[in-house]
C-alpha cells in the first residue's frame, strides 16, 4: 500500500516535471523564428480557421524555400506553433498567455474572426508582443489604441461602403432607399455602421433596418417587408448562414430588388450551393484572385490561387490569401528592423509600406490597413448554369461590367 503510494507520487512528480520542461521555446532558436498562433481548428469557426492555417503554412513554406528571412547577415526560417482555440474567445486568450509566457513566443499571428482577435489583443498588448493578424476586421479593434496590433485587411465598416456608393452613382448621384438586415455580432454591426455612414454622406435613406438573431435561419419576415416597401438596395450581413438563407428565401419568395449586396459569399460557396439562384448577388471581398497586385513570393493572385489549389485541393478564399500576406508583412518588417527586438520590429511594422499579391499594405496608427480597398464581385452565370465570381467594383480592378438593376424574377 505504502509502496504503491510512493510509486504513484513519483510518477506524478515526473509527469509534472516533463510537462513543464518540454515546452520552453525561445523566440528565435538556432536559425528559426518561432511565431505563435491560437487558431480555430474545432468549433464553429473551424472551416475558416483551417483556411487561415493553410494560408499561414503556405506562406511559411514559400518564404523558407525562397531563402528565408535575413536578419543581421544570417538567414532564418519561419516556424509556427499552433494551438486549437476551439472557436472560444476565453480559450484563445488563455492560449495567447501560454504561447507568450510558457512557450516564450515573442511574435504572434492572429486567430480567425474579430471576436477571437479581440480576446487576444489585450494579452499581446500587455506583453508587448507584436501581432500581425489577417482575420479580425471589426472596427473596435482599431479604436482601442493598441500599439502592437497590425491588421492586413480593411476594417469591417468598409465592407459594403462601396456597394452603397456604386448604387448612388448609378442613381445619378441621388440618394437611394436602403433596406438592411444584419446579424447581431461585432463584425456585422460594424458593417452596419459603415452603411449608416455611407447613407448619411450620400443622402440615402434607410427604410428597413432589421437585426437578425444568432440562430438565424429564417428571414422571411424581412423579405416580406422588402417586397412591400421596394427599396433600391438590399444589404445583408450575417456570415455564411446569412448569405445562404438570404439567397434561398429571395429566390423562393421571388423578391425583386435592383441591387443585393452581401458579405461572406465566397465562404458560403454561394454559387456552388445555390447555382443560378445566386446570380447577380454582389459580394464584398477583401481579395479576389484576378486582382493584379504583385510580389516576389507568390507573383500575383492567379499564381497564388493555382499554387494554393495544387497544395490544398480547393480554391483559396480570401481568408487564406490575407493570412499568407501576414507572413510577408512579418518577413519584411524583420528585415527592415534587422533585429529581433520586439520594439524595433513593432516600429518596423508600423512603417510598413509594401505591395503583396493580396494588395497594398500600409498601417494607420490604429493598426488597420488603409491602403487596400474592398472589392465587390458579382455572381454571374452562363447559360449552362456554371457560375463565377467576377470583380465589378471598384472600376480600376473590374473584370466585368456590373449588371444593374438585377433582372426581375419573372424575366429570368
Amino acid at each position, binding site marked *: 500500500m505504502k509502496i504503491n503510494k510512493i510509486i504513484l507520487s513519483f510518477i506524478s512528480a515526473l509527469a509534472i516535471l516533463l510537462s513543464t520542461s518540454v515546452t520552453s521555446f525561445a523566440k528565435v532558436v538556432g536559425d528559426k523564428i518561432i511565431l505563435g498562433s491560437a487558431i480555430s481548428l474545432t468549433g464553429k469557426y473551424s*472551416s475558416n480557421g483551417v483556411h487561415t492555417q493553410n494560408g499561414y503554412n503556405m506562406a511559411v513554406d514559400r518564404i523558407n524555400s525562397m531563402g528565408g528571412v535575413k536578419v543581421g547577415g544570417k538567414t532564418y526560417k519561419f516556424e509556427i506553433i499552433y494551438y486549437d482555440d476551439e472557436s472560444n474567445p476565453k480559450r484563445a486568450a488563455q492560449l495567447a498567455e501560454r504561447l507568450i509566457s510558457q512557450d516564450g513566443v515573442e511574435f504572434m499571428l492572429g486567430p480567425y474572426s474579430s471576436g477571437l482577435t479581440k480576446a487576444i489583443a489585450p494579452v499581446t498588448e500587455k506583453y508587448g508582443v507584436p501581432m500581425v493578424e489577417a482575420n479580425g476586421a471589426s472596427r473596435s479593434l482599431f479604436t482601442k489604441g493598441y500599439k502592437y496590433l497590425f491588421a492586413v485587411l480593411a476594417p469591417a465598416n468598409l465592407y459594403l461602403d462601396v456597394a452603397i456608393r456604386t448604387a448612388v452613382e448609378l442613381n445619378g448621384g441621388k440618394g437611394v432607399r436602403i433596406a438592411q438586415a444584419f446579424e447581431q455580432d461585432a463584425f456585422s454591426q460594424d458593417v452596419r455602421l459603415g452603411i449608416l455612414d455611407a447613407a448619411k454622406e450620400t443622402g440615402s435613406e434607410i427604410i428597413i433596418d432589421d437585426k437578425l438573431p444568432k440562430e438565424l*435561419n*429564417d428571414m422571411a*419576415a424581412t423579405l*416580406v417587408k422588402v417586397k412591400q416597401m421596394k427599396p433600391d438596395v438590399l444589404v445583408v450581413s450575417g456570415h455564411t448562414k446569412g448569405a445562404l*438563407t438570404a439567397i434561398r428565401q429571395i429566390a423562393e419568395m*421571388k423578391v425583386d430588388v435592383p441591387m443585393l449586396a452581401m458579405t461572406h459569399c465566397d465562404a458560403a460557396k454561394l454559387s456552388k*450551393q445555390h447555382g443560378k439562384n445566386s446570380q447577380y448577388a454582389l459580394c464584398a471581398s477583401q481579395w479576389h484572385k484576378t486582382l493584379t497586385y504583385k510580389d516576389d513570393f507568390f507573383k500575383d493572385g492567379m499564381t497564388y490561387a493555382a499554387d494554393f489549389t495544387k497544395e490544398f485541393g480547393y480554391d483559396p478564399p480570401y481568408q487564406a490569401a490575407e493570412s499568407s500576406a501576414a507572413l510577408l508583412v512579418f518577413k519584411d518588417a524583420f528585415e527592415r528592423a534587422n533585429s529581433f527586438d520586439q520594439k524595433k520590429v513593432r516600429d518596423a511594422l508600423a512603417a510598413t509600406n509594401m505591395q503583396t499579391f493580396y494588395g497594398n499594405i500600409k498601417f494607420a496608427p490604429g493598426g488597420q490597413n488603409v491602403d487596400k480597398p474592398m472589392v465587390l464581385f458579382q455572381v454571374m452565370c452562363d447559360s449552362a448554369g456554371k457560375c463565377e465570381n467576377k470583380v465589378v467594383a471598384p472600376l480600376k480592378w473590374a473584370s466585368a461590367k456590373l449588371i444593374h438593376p438585377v433582372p426581375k424574377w419573372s424575366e429570368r
Partner: protein
Amino acid sequence: MVFQYPMISVQACLDGVLLGILFALIAYGMALQWGVMNIINIAQGDLVILGGYIAYFMYLYGIHPAWGVIIAPIIMYFVGVGLYKLVINKVVDRDLFISILATFGISILFMQLMNFAFGADVVLANSGYGTTFLFDSAVVLPNSKIFSAFISILFAICLVIYMKKSKLGRAIRATAQNARAAKILGVDTEKVYAATFGINAALCGVAGALISITFTIHPYMGLPYTIRSFMIVIVAGLGNLPGVALSGMGLGVFEEFADYILGTEFRIGAVFLLLVLILVYRRFKLSRKREYLK
C-alpha cells in the same frame, strides 16, 4: 407596418402555421417520450439537425433530398435505439434532473461530433420546388414549406393510427399510463422504452430532413428546436395530439408576428419570454387546482 400593409398579416399567419406544423412534429416526439419515459430530452434539437445532415448528404450524392423524409427516420430510429441502449436506459427510472443532465451531455456530444464529422459550414439541400403565389402575388409561399407541413401532418396521422392500432402502440400507451402495471401484465417495458426513443428520434429525422429543405442546418443550431418543442409540450400537455398541433401553429404565428412587430432580433427572445409566461401561468393554475400535469 402590420397595419400599413394588411397582406403582411395574412403572410405572417400562413408562414406561422406552416412553420408551426413542423415544430409540432418535433414536439410530438418529445411529448411521446416524455409521457412514456418521463425524460425531457435536451438533445431533441440535435437529433433534428442530425436528420437534416442525412438529407443533406443524400442531396450531395445526387439523390433528391425529399427522399430524406423516408431514409432519415429509418437511420435515426436506429440511432435512437442505440442511444437508449447506451445511455438513456441508465437514467430512465431516475429523477428528472439526472435525465436532463444526461441528455444535455448527449446534446453537447452530438454538436461536437457533427461539427467534427461534417464541418462547421452552414449547409442546405435544394429541393427545386417552386413558389405558390396567392392573392395576386401579394402573398408568397415557398412550396418547400407547404411540402414540409404536408409531410409533417402525414407522419403525425400515421403515428396516431399506429399508436391506436398496433400491438407496440398499445404497449407504449400502457407503459405511459402505468409502467409497473404494464410490466406485471407482460409488457416488456425495456423494449417499449427503446422503441419509444427510437420513434422520437425518427420523428426528429423527418423534421430535420424537412428543415434542410426549407431552412439551413448547422451543427450548433439544435437548441432553438429543443426549446420550441419543450414549450409546445408544456402548453399542450402530454398525450394531447390536437393540442400539440394547435400550440405548434400558435407558436409559429406568434413568432412571425413577433418578428414583424418587435423586429427579427427579438424573435427567439419572444419565444423565451412566452415560455416563462406560460410556466408562470401553469404554476398558478396548478396551485389553484392542486392537480398534477398529465
